[in-house]
């Protein structure tokens, strides 16, 4: 390449860069649009849940926009979201957050999918004082760092399976139980584990097996052999979808009899579809279920949300979508109460949020976590070959009775 061509390229890039920085100063609220930014996993290992999250966001944006948008200062604004694909990579997510804020001039952010990526983005939004409402980062460590601009609509990870221990104690006539647990060594699952440790302490229960599964491991045979030998009252497993599928596969193959089995990520793993009857009686933690009786004026009820979502995207909404939709409702509410686009006013309004959505009640605690919504537990129940998730706890929303104890494998067809 000759010198002139090189010079020319440098010149063009310089102009492009300058233009890019200039254009950023208009981007936050323009032409009646409120521009939100989000780095989301559209490719890579979180891509299925990333897409669920994006669908949830999009459905809510369409709904809010078509129902009159956001009213600030007597004028009506519409939501718009700029997405970038973070490739399920935390480093990339942090870069994209910078880009959204510095180049695209976004002043309000929506969270990415997963605790790990939210952890990568939160320091960036905090640095630039950008309010972020996130719907898919449940790790407790997100809420203990003193972040001021982070708000999560979901319950923190340590609450996921605490209810299950209470339920086990209740079924044991109020007496302490023996707990066996196996958790993957990642931030989320270890937080779930902390919740169990708290619950065990509170109820005086004893943890007899406490295995931490390495991330690369997809074999739980050793843990399950220990469970068989020690006969605990409840077995708790958390290791994302891989953990849930591996556990059911090996529990059924090794014929491990345990009165109660509690886990996370059953619906994300499509447990009842992939394992069918083998997954029956598994107890699963969930942020949301369509049968809950919460209401709002945008989506109506959970059942209606389920119907609308199916119509739009052709599949039933997992809780990841529902909570993502709720994040937009929170933003709208905060903008209207702040009645301003001043970031700090919006932040203060977010802080003071107290509302009900179809997804649940939302009120933020001091760390930014949602303290108003309990986790729910459902149990996989089968009729013939079709298996369904039935809500069994808390009792207020239970559609079915909790089946306990799980019959031994010798009696299961």
């Amino acid at each position, binding site marked *: 390449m000759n010198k002139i061509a090189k010079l020319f390229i440098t010149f063009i890039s310089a102009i492009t860069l300058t233009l890019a920085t200039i254009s950023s100063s208009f981007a936050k609220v323009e032409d009646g649009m409120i521009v939100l930014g989000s780095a989301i996993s559209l490719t890579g290992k979180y891509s299925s849940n990333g897409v669920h999250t994006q669908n949830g966001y999009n459905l809510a944006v369409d709904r809010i926009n078509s129902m009159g948008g956001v009213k600030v200062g007597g004028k009506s604004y519409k939501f718009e979201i700029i997405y970038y694909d973070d490739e399920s990579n935390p480093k990339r997510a942090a870069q994209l957050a910078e880009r959204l804020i510095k180049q695209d001039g976004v002043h309000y952010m929506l969270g990415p999918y997963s605790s790990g990526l939210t952890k990568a983005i939160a320091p960036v939004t905090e640095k630039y004082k950008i309010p972020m409402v996130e719907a898919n980062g449940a790790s407790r460590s997100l809420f203990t760092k003193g972040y001021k601009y982070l708000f999560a609509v979901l319950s923190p990870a340590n609450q996921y399976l605490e209810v299950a221990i209470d339920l086990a104690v209740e079924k044991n006539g109020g007496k302490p139980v023996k707990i066996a647990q196996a958790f993957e060594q990642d931030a989320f699952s270890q937080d779930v584990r902390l919740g169990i440790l708290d619950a065990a302490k509170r109820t005086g229960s004893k943890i007899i097996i406490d295995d931490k599964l390495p991330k690369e491991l997809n074999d739980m045979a050793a843990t399950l*052999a220990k469970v068989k030998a020690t006969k605990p009252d409840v077995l708790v497993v958390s290791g994302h979808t891989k953990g849930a*599928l591996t556990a059911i596969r090996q529990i059924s193959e090794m014929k491990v009899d345990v009165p109660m089995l509690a886990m996370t990520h059953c619906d994300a*793993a499509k447990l009842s579809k992939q394992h069918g009857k083998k997954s029956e009686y598994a107890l699963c933690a969930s942020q949301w279920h369509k049968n809950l009786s919460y209401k709002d004026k945008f989506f109506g009820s959970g059942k209606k949300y389920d119907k609308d979502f199916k119509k739009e995207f052709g599949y039933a909404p997992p809780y990841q979508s529902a909570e993502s939709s709720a994040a937009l409702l929170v933003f709208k509410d905060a903008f209207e109460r702040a009645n301003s686009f001043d970031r700090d006013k919006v932040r203060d309004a977010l802080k003071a949020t107290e509302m009900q959505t179809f997804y649940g009640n939302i009120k933020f605690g001091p760390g930014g976590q949602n303290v108003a919504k309990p986790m729910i537990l459902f149990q996989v129940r089968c009729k013939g070959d079709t298996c369904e998730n039935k809500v069994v706890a808390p009792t207020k929303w239970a559609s079915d009775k909790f089946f306990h104890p799980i019959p031994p494998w010798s009696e299961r067809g």
Partner: protein
Amino acid sequence: MDFLIFKAPMLMVQASLDGILLGILFALIAYGMALQWGVMNIINIAQGDLVILGGYIAYTMYLAGIHPAWGVIVSPILMYFVGWGLYKLVINKVVDRDLFISILATFGIAIVFQQLMNFIFGADVVVAQSEYGTTMLFDNSVTLPNSKIFSAFVSLAYAVALVIYMKKSKLGRAIRATAQNARAAKILGVDTEKVYAATFGINAALCGIAGALISITLTLHPYVGLPYTVRSFMIVIVAGLGNLPAVAISGMGLGLFEEFADYILGTEFRIGAVFMLLVFILVYRRFKLSKKREYLK
């Protein structure tokens, strides 16, 4: 808690059998790696991803209503051509370069494969159901999934078939000759280019079998290939190249070691323990070699 295994002797039996059954499966993957490492001097980082691709072939059959166990026949055939194609496309350009280049190239292939599988099959963890049931021993205190027993038998059968093929067939002889001395083999009329392509194809086929077995015994996901690469690498390091019985023994040994490490050190140290063993073996080998050198002086 840590020493539960010594209190319950049945756990010892369970752990040993689990370890051996899994170890045989890993040995099959490792043998493919040893073969092409020995012949072509390439360390294939994409080994695990070939395994997972083989698994997805079986899983696709399962979705189509065919029993996934047929995957142990279909998958190696398809994977042979995948391997052969990979050789023609990429590997033949790096085969006589230094090791670093080939590691980089296969690392690149691994990434491309992961992304492609993610694109085609989605990012969900999936399993295929064999419905083979369970074998119960010692009054139900030791339970072995029949799918694991099946996978160990299939692995053994293929391994034996491969050994015979290597000994008796013309191509097998050519492969062994190339492994010993590629230049001499070429001078004597062996088409080494063809041998390389076949070797890479055979390796991919072995991965295909292992993948199909993994789809019915464990779980599949586009990004879980690397642990299989690492484990087969370890088995090969321990066993040395081109020695099938040693690979099988080292595979089973590692499987056993892992299971026992789980009971004694705790699950969290299970994989760490294997790595520690690897370091130990490498140091020991070096030590032995240096002694030999001294003696020669």
